[in-house]
């Protein structure tokens, strides 16, 4: 990778990143995970080398977080990153003290390489680029005889660490959204801070055919299936009165032509108000389609983004000392999170250069659930599969089961993989 200029010894956190270290804790980690399932056992020493080489190309990840008087900031980290065998639940809080102060953690298990990333560092899009570099390098080091010529010579990407929020927000933009609290998922939680992971590996060709039939995108379709599964699996039983609201993160880099490696995302909230006793899937899908066409426009995204930037740029908020900001933000975040039932983040296709594809089985993307948003969903696709992942702290799999059964009824092949915490639908495989 080519950088615009030499990395600074320190840098400010971008507008989104500022809020994460203030609001985060052991129960609210704001960590997401990318995994690559290879076709061979992982060699820890080779992985260690691969991370070292990749990190030298992505120096913006070589940082630690420091406390300032008003905000946190990043400072260069000269320590070695720690590479370990996976031994904990995914997306857990990354304790800098036990991680050589790095804000990401690389682990491995059998044929799988994971990277857990604290959201302050970057968003899913940029983390994917860094992770791909690790995977490319790992494969090259593992098979030096096959990769004696440079396959990636023309694949250099330019990046910078600018705060694209500040650069692109509209000072005059007004967000007129009137917000209603969302339906919050209820149920018994998994004990001892456990996280259940269920991957639903979907045949992308069959899924596309169904989407074409309804004239919707894959994200719209899966969002509708998710809402329908929540409706059938939790909402009806709990006699929910508030709307089911799904938060969909949006990658702003393509909207604003940004090459930043820092966070640059916003979100839209898809709201489904279940007024009728019996709401059909088709009705929900129509609703989702309308919500997307209404909210996924440059003007609407600009409004949401600008409102958030203006809040972070408010002089009174800026001048509150960090030790006072922490309790204020933590309390307000508990309230803010009540406006979302669940999050569904789709990072799309993970493009891998042909020569390397044959060494990789699959990619996985996971986001951390928390006390209010008890289920989080994520998806990514590779070759002919899309992996839809549920990460949950709920001690039942009603929603995951409904999701699976619905897709099967639509004649879409779905395979299940899980971390075995709640092995209920794994038996269907």
């Amino acid at each position: 990778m080519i950088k615009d200029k030499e990395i600074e010894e320190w840098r400010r956190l971008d507008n989104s990143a500022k809020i994460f270290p203030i609001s985060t804790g052991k129960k609210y980690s704001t960590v997401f995970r990318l995994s690559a399932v290879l076709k061979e056992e992982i060699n820890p020493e080779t992985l260690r080398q691969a991370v070292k080489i990749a990190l030298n190309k992505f120096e913006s990840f070589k940082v630690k977080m420091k406390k300032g008087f008003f905000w946190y900031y990043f400072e260069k980290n000269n320590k070695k990153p720690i590479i370990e065998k996976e031994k904990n639940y995914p997306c857990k809080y990354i304790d800098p003290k036990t991680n050589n102060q790095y804000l990401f953690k690389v682990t491995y298990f059998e044929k799988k390489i994971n990277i857990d990333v604290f959201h302050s560092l970057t968003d899913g899009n940029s983390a994917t680029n860094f992770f791909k570099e690790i995977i490319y390098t790992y494969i090259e080091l593992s098979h030096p005889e096959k990769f004696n010529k440079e396959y990636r010579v023309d694949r250099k990407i330019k990046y910078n660490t600018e705060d694209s929020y500040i650069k692109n927000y509209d000072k005059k933009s007004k967000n007129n959204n009137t917000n209603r609290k969302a339906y919050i998922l209820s149920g018994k939680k998994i004990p001892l801070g456990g996280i259940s992971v269920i991957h639903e590996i979907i045949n992308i060709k069959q899924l596309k055919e169904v989407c074409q039939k309804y004239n919707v995108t894959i994200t719209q379709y899966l969002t509708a299936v998710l809402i329908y599964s929540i409706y059938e699996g939790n909402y009806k039983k709990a006699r929910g009165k508030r709307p089911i609201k799904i938060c969909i993160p949006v990658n702003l880099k393509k909207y604003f032509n940004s090459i930043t490696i820092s966070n640059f995302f916003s979100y839209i909230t898809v709201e489904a108000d279940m007024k009728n006793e019996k709401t059909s899937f088709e009705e929900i899908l129509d609703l989702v389609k309308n919500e997307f066409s209404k909210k996924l426009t440059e003007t609407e995204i600009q409004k949401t983004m600008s409102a958030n930037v203006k809040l972070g740029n408010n002089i009174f908020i800026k001048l509150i000392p960090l030790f006072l900001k922490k309790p204020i933000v933590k309390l307000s975040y508990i309230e803010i999170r009540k406006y979302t039932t669940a999050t569904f983040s789709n990072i799309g296709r993970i493009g891998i250069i042909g020569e390397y594809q044959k060494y990789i089985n699959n990619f996985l993307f996971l986001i951390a659930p928390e006390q209010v948003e008890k289920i989080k969903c994520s998806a990514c696709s590779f070759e002919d599969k899309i992996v839809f992942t549920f990460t949950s702290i709920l001690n039942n799999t009603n929603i995951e089961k409904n999701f699976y059964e619905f897709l099967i009824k639509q004649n879409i092949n779905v395979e299940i993989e899980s971390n075995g915490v709640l092995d209920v639908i794994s038996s269907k495989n």
Partner: protein
Amino acid sequence: MLYPQKISAKKCNFIKRLLIVITVLISIILIIINKLTTPKIPWAALSIAGMIYIWVTAIYSINRNTNIASHVLVQIIIISILVVYIDYTLGFKRWSINIAIPILIMTANVAMLVLTIVSHKKYIKYAIYQLIIFLLSIVPIFIIINSGVQKNILNIIAVSIATLSFFVCIILCGKDMKEEIIRKFHT
């Protein structure tokens, strides 16, 4: 298999909890013995204060094992509190303010001066602590001016050493100090 089946569950820090229980038990025993034997001399309170000092130092050392300057700062604060408390418990003869704290300030500033000279390349790490130590070190001036503390030579020497150390640091590493202030106070 994609995930390990045996997850390392939350390990409770057994040793830490055991040490806390032992500390509390010893404290209770000391208070009882003190009350039963020599109730007029509060030696148990002094012993407990000492134990609290050890705990604060140990916890800080475990959590923040990177920056020596931060240890100097923490020590200057907690030892000051400890000596003032001991002085107060023994009848407040002001030896803590007239003798102990000035010696503490001198030691801390000399330590910071040595740190600056020995590792001025890493000075940016120490800059903010140096600034806070200096600000704490000149507090005795205000005490001397505004209260009945004896204008003893030790206090004057301590403040002089602090000022000298601070100016030496500014001359040697003023740029780093400015940079660190920008970092720490950016909005």
